[in-house]
């Protein structure tokens, strides 16, 4: 036992380094302009992701890598003495694919059932990918007046699929991945 204990001061930093190596690659991606509002019938949320479209990401997209952003929106009713009740759990995906033949970007948004949107410029594509407008969270009549509610949301880059089964070999390719923290907004209906 003692030889291990002796080596512990050497081993532990190594392991910790490896553990937190993942964090080193994380970029500085934030959610911005999170607005919770309502129409007459529904609870709506607007949000924007900032800092996701790095140069590496752009290069990857221009190389034809299909990239998917995932957005998670959870609605909880906060209860003081018990766990919060999860009322709604939404997962939204934005997928972008560049067609190098036609030199256009095809964007698919899961919460818009329409056909894929084609844009010509990367700026437009970025805008489409990073924004969520008027997403219906829950119909208003599911909410009780006077209760405290909390919306938690975060954005994440889904795993990127590499060609030619390279993902069997390249474990370290996660340089474009990002994951934001959970952003919470409390409100009282």
């Amino acid at each position, binding site marked *: *036992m003692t*030889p*291990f204990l002796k*080596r512990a001061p*050497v*081993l532990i930093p190594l*392991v910790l380094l*490896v*553990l*937190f*190596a*993942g*964090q080193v690659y994380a970029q500085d991606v934030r959610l911005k302009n999170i607005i919770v509002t309502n129409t007459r019938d529904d609870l709506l949320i607007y949000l924007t992701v900032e800092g996701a479209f790095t140069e590496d990401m752009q*290069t*990857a997209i*221009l*190389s*034809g*890598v299909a990239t998917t952003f995932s957005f998670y929106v959870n609605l909880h009713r906060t209860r003081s003495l018990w766990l919060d009740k999860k009322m709604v759990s939404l997962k939204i995906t934005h997928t972008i694919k560049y*067609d*190098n*033949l*036609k*030199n256009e970007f095809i964007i698919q948004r899961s919460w818009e059932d329409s*056909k894929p949107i*084609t844009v*010509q410029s990367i700026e437009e594509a970025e805008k489409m990918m990073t924004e969520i407008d008027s997403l219906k969270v829950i119909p208003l009549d599911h909410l009780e007046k006077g209760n405290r509610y909390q919306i938690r949301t975060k954005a994440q880059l*889904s*795993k*990127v*699929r*590499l*060609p*030619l089964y*390279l*993902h*069997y*070999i*390249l*474990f*370290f*390719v*996660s*340089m474009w*991945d990002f994951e934001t923290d959970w952003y919470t907004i409390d409100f009282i209906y």
Partner: protein
Amino acid sequence: MGKTPAINRTVQSIDDQKRRKREIIIIAVIVALVALLTFAENRVIHFGADFPISNTILMFILININMLLLLLLIFLVLRNLVKLLYDRKRKVMGAKLRTKLVVAFIALTLLPTIVLFFFSINFITASIEFWFNVPVEQALENSLKVGRNIYAITEDNNRFYLDRVAYQIKTKKLYEPAKHKALSHYVQVVQNAFNIHGVEVYGTNSKRITYALIPELENKPFSVISANDLQQEMNANNVRTISENINRGQLIRTIGTVPFGVKHTEAKAYVVLNVIIPQDLSERMSSISRGFEEYQQIKLLKKPIQITYYITLSIVGLLVVFCAVWFGFYLAKSITIPIMALAEGTKKVAEGDLSFTIGAVADDEIGSLVNSFNKMTKDLRGSREQLELSARMLRERNIEIEARRQYMEIVLKNVSAGVITLDADGYITTINTSAEKMLRLKSRDVLHESYRSLLWGQHLNMAREVMDSLMNAEENAVELPLKLSINGRPRSFLINLNSLKGNAGEHMGIVMVFDDLTELEKAQRMAAWREVARRIAHEVKNPLTPITLSAQRLSRKYSQELNEPVFDECTRTIIDHVDLIQNIVNEFSSFARFPTADPKPGELLPIIEETVALYREGHPNINFNIQAPPSIPILNLDRQQLKQAMINLVDNAIAAIKMDGDIAISLVLDNAADKVRIEVADSGHGISDEVKTRLFEPNFSTKKTGMGLGLTIVSTIVNDHNGSVRVRDNDPRGAIFIIELPI
């Protein structure tokens, strides 16, 4: 040595317990490490979403095994390194050799590994560069450009026609609802004339007004462009192209405004020209697109691939290096452990512990060295035991010899004869106690002195003769009687000289054994005289009685008858002289059978005073002096006999002094020797040395008259009292008779 089985078992079970505990600890640590590593890997490695679970698990397992192995190796190597450094600091035997071996191994493996490593990396880099070289990229890009050109050309064509068509429609105002039929007709004409696969016209409300298709597409559904697409901004050429996939191929739809090139707000209608790109062409183009895409993605991943290769190479290289290092340690251990054992063994042997043996090792030279060492110690042990044995025997012999020597010394010391040994050169080597006593010598005065320096005069001559005759091997033994005067007293010795000869006959020395025969001779003479006296007395006595009786008878018978004075005188003379003879005979007889002393405690001084008193009056010309200390102890003495002895001595003293002189009688108390000395000193004519030796013999007298028995009687009396009598010269003249009596 072997332990008893019971102890062995307990030792084993303790070892087992320890081992099991260690194993459990190791397993626990490994599990913890695996969990930790997996967690760490999860954070770092992202597999694709469609990466099968089984493969994921497999990859994780492989990675973990690799990491664990690496960690284990690192740990082992580090431990060994630390131990080596520590040993080096402590100067443990073998540490330097181990260091050398390990360093050699490391160098031996590091060098080729590093070379291979760098070479591989360069090779990989070069290969990767080669694969991604420019011509390939150029070709792909050109293909893509060809593909793009197809779209561009199609769009261009469409735009060309769109321009014409839009102009026509605008000029003829065919977009008006009333001209619907004419529009359809025109559209059909256009389609036929220009062989466009499809021509459509949309109104401002984004609803399709009319369309015309090639015969193949007739009666098949033809999708409508959505309002969204219609309303999209035109690009630089004032057209907008969208594409759709239909089963015949790819449909390129170019939208243009009527009039051509105006904004949406001013557009009266929209014309869409559709061109179908055949399926196979379309497929080829998409495959070109895909290929290029993949190529570009791989290009993106060039760096990561390189990094992966580097990392893999590094891991493998590290594994190799650590394996080599560990192997170096192992080999070093197999060499240094026997060497250390040997070193310790030699140290122990130097200290004297010969029971050390080294366990057998491998078969090689070191093994044979170890075996030789063991054999050497065994031999050393054997010879040491032998040495101890012979030392012991030697000690015992020495003790024996010493004991014998001491015994001989004691014997010599206590033997009554005197023993003097001389070496070959005449130096005295030993002299025993009896010799010292007899000759009145001290050994330290004569030891290691030559006889030539100790003797002189006629003695020296005699000695020389004797020595010569002995040394010249004429005789081996010489016996000679010798009369010497020791301290003024005459002694008679019988000397036996033996020459000591060595093995080769060389003269080694002389041993002299002598006995003091003085007393013996005296006694012999005494006995002889006694016998003579007895005989004479006996023989003479017998006829005396008849003579006396006859004379008496004659006197009785004829004295009155004859009344002759001559007769009476003669018979009287006969009787008197016979009486005289009788007395003499009686004296003889009494000498022969002297009555034994009857000692009773008494004082000595009165006897002497009485004796002196007898003579004092009768000899006024002699000065009598009595000296006595105040305390003379009471002695056991026969008063009568001692008085007789004193009388005899004083008689002699007086006889020695012719005219006047001194007679001094002194009593001396010798406490040290427990003796009382009576010294009768006269200033007479003295006694010569020759006479001194015969003084106490019977019938020896220097007087004209006398039987010479006086001193003999004195001697007998004194001897009966366990004392001794002797004579020596008085200073300046005369003689001193000394009687010593024990207390």
